[in-house]
């Protein structure tokens, strides 16, 4: 279980480290705006939020699972 969670978290790190850096960064940096907010600002914060959600998903699901298995093993 631990190993799997580690692997998932490393995966999240690699994915967003790529998305938050050049050259992909340039894709978000074009002129124009989305919902009145400049492209770059909007996409960086959207990605940021997405990353946090990924982390919640990985970490909290692990806790829920391990909590359940504890109960069932008793």
């Amino acid at each position, binding site marked *: 279980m631990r190993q799997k969670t580690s692997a998932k978290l490393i995966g999240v790190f690699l994915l967003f480290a790529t998305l938050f850096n050049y050259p992909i*960064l340039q894709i978000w940096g074009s002129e124009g705006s989305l919902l009145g907010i400049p492209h770059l600002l909007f996409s960086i914060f959207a990605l940021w939020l997405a990353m946090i959600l990924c982390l919640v998903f990985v970490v909290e699901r692990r806790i829920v699972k391990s909590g359940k298995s504890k109960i069932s093993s008793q």
Partner: protein
Amino acid sequence: MSTLVVVVASLGYLVLLFGVAYFGDKRALQGRSITNNPFVYALSLAVYCTAWTYYGSVGRATETGLEFITIYLGPTLMAPLWYILLRKMIVIAKSQRINSIADFISARYGKSAFLGSAVTIISIIGIIPYISLQLKAVSFSFDILTQQGGPQAFFEGTSFYQDTAFYITIILAAFTILFGTRHLEVAEKHEGIVAAIAFESIVKLVAFVSVGLFVCFGVFDSPIDLFQQADKIEELRNLFVIDQNHGSQPWTWAWLTLISMSAILFLPRQFHVAVIENKHPNHVNKAIWLFPLYLFVINLFVMPIALGGMMEFSGQNVDADTYVLSLPLAYGNEYLALLVFIGGLSASTSMVIVATNALSIMASSNLLVPLLLRTSAIQGDFVRDVSGRLRSLRRLIIIVILILAYVYFISIGQGTSLVSIGLISFVAVAQFIPSMIGGLFWKDGNMVGAIMGLLAGFMIWAFTLPFASLVQAGIIESELIEKGLWGIDGLRPFALFGMEGMDKVSHSAFWSLLVNAALYVIGSLYGKPSVIGHTQANLFVNIYKYTGGQTESAFFRGKAQFVDIRLMLNRFLGYEHSNDLLNRYARNHNLELEKIKEASPHMVLYAEKLLSGVIGAASARLLVGSVVKEEPINLYEVMNILDETQQLMRYSQELERKSEELRKATLDLQSANERLKEMDALKDEFITTVTHELRTPITSIRSFSNILYDNPALEDEKRAEFLAIIIQESQRISRLINQVLDLEKMESGHADWNLTQLDVGLVVQESVRRLQSLINEQEIKLHLDLPNHLPLIRGDKDRLMQVVINLLSNAIKFCKPDRGVVNVRMVYTDEDLILKVSDNGEGISPEVQPYIFDKFTQFTDHRSGRRQGSGLGLSITWRIVRYHRGSIEVESSPGEGATFTVTLPLSETRRLPMKTPSFNRTP
């Protein structure tokens, strides 16, 4: 706003903060800790957000757009890796009672005092600019709020006692001392500080978000309105464009992300809150997403505030670092401005408190205590309260650090922006990356590599950043920047080895980390670690294997007088506290303190760990070394320990092998038992069979004898017929008995074998001759196919003839009546002589085939329904063939006849003994 109001508000806030800390400490003492939960832990990590974030981000954003965000993306990206890195660091720090990052590195590389002091010096020099930026932020925000004309005012000829920053420094020093140095044993943690830091994290977040909302909805109609207005100005629009001409350089972006990734783990204050003050490794799990969320929220309004400030103050001389405060003031919102000031104060104070505290722990443990121990200032025989002295030392260090920060601020910090000051510290801290990461995961990383890497990295950093900035600020007169060190072009601080085009920070980070990492690896590969270095490396890298175990004591042979240990603990931990701990230890190990004379290695280690919580691993080692007669573990002893382990492993392997053998033997026994049972059943059957076989002829002999006896006047012809039957039946009995005896002899190995060189062809011909009458009688067509020159073999002629006769007579017996055909064929190869005897009878059913060579297997004659023969013929045949090292096989399918194949290996038979040793009937 009047100075009095601001001062009262600030002091009021600080008193409130102290109240929170007091409350936290009290609850901890009652055992109802308020800091023992993941939310407080995540909030305490937010000590990362200092005045740099609070004021500086906005300033940075006005210059380079979104580049400021790398400082927060780095930690966010690092968060998932905490699960591996931070948790491991926490477990190690707990098991080794580590009290700072310097202690961590020193402990990892063999508790090296030199390394500990090197890391301490790097940390202090590296962090001083960072602390100075907090002083700068507090002082300018105070000046702006009280309208004293901004940060430039004290620049022109004012003495230090008129300077706001000076008083702020004093207040912060007093406050930090009050907070941090009440307890001594660091491993017991500062619950109060953590509570206060978490509280401050909430305050600064609320304050900053308030300004953001004020700018978005108070100054402008909505965020959309704000962005639309900004979009009309080209300068502002360009802040959001990343292409060849705008935005931060790819390298800068990546390097800033990397060094902030390292900062979140390795800044002394981050290490302190994340590792030392951690209550449970599992708290990390929630912080993995809570902390990035905090960063996300506090950064949401940086860009709006920056844009709002740029539009509001365009053309005016307002420092962008102050927009957060200037905007509410410009709109006359004084209460919001006060809240902002308090928020900024909380951001600064939290950083200053934790950072100076962490540095003072580091400095006292790694610099001063070893120094004192070396100069034997506290090694005297008389008992003295060293713990009190240590506390004063730490207070002194806090004051010295803050004074240094103040000096840095008034000398160079004023002209530069907050973020550029802070980045200098980040690059310094990034020097810990190789030795920390290597230390956690690479067992071969050793002290030589760590020292080489750290020192080289530090020197490059010092040359390319702080030293160069001194030159740039005009404090050191030199043409260094343009012409390079000693006039060497390759040694220009911003273009080392001629590498131009990078910004200062990335350039410095690149060269220092490259050299640092390279030397770390090279040094580790070529340097030799000490025994203790080896042990510690193993303990760190494989920590999960050892947690809970007592591995360390296996490698530690020190013994000491218990009195000495007790005295030492009394001195450093205080009398009551240390006695409490010793009593607890005695209780846990079923010892009576009064009776202990000599402290065991385990107890000595325990004392060392307690001490290292106060004075660091290296100092504790030195101190314990002074009272312990440690027999340093040498290679021989290590080998012994290893040998013992190996022997143990060998034993267990042996045991495994034996039990495996036992298992096999049991299986063999079982199958043997099965066979015995089968054979027993066969024996029973045999006796029945033999009895039956014997009874039949005996019955007929008896009845015919009776007739002859009762009728003496029987006609001659009849008499002769009856006598012939009696003779025939007697012969049958004796043949049966002979066969049984024969078989018994062969089985027991007592048979006589009369071996000679012989031609099997002749044996076959003679056998056929003997059976000729039978063949003629049954009208059987016999095909004999014998090659002319058969190789001679060594064998027993009579027995081999018995084989051929058995096979032939069986074939004749089971042939089709009237149309019987029997084929006898011999062939030979280089190795074997092969005899095939086949008939065209009923054949042998597949179920019987496996048993036909067993004793007492009889064939049922389908014609008569009677069983034929004694059931011993084929069994004897098989034994004779086996004696000649040959094999016999049968191929048959029902209705197709049967073919018996005897294979006699030529080479094997030659090796048979010429004559059997016993019962030799020599001719």
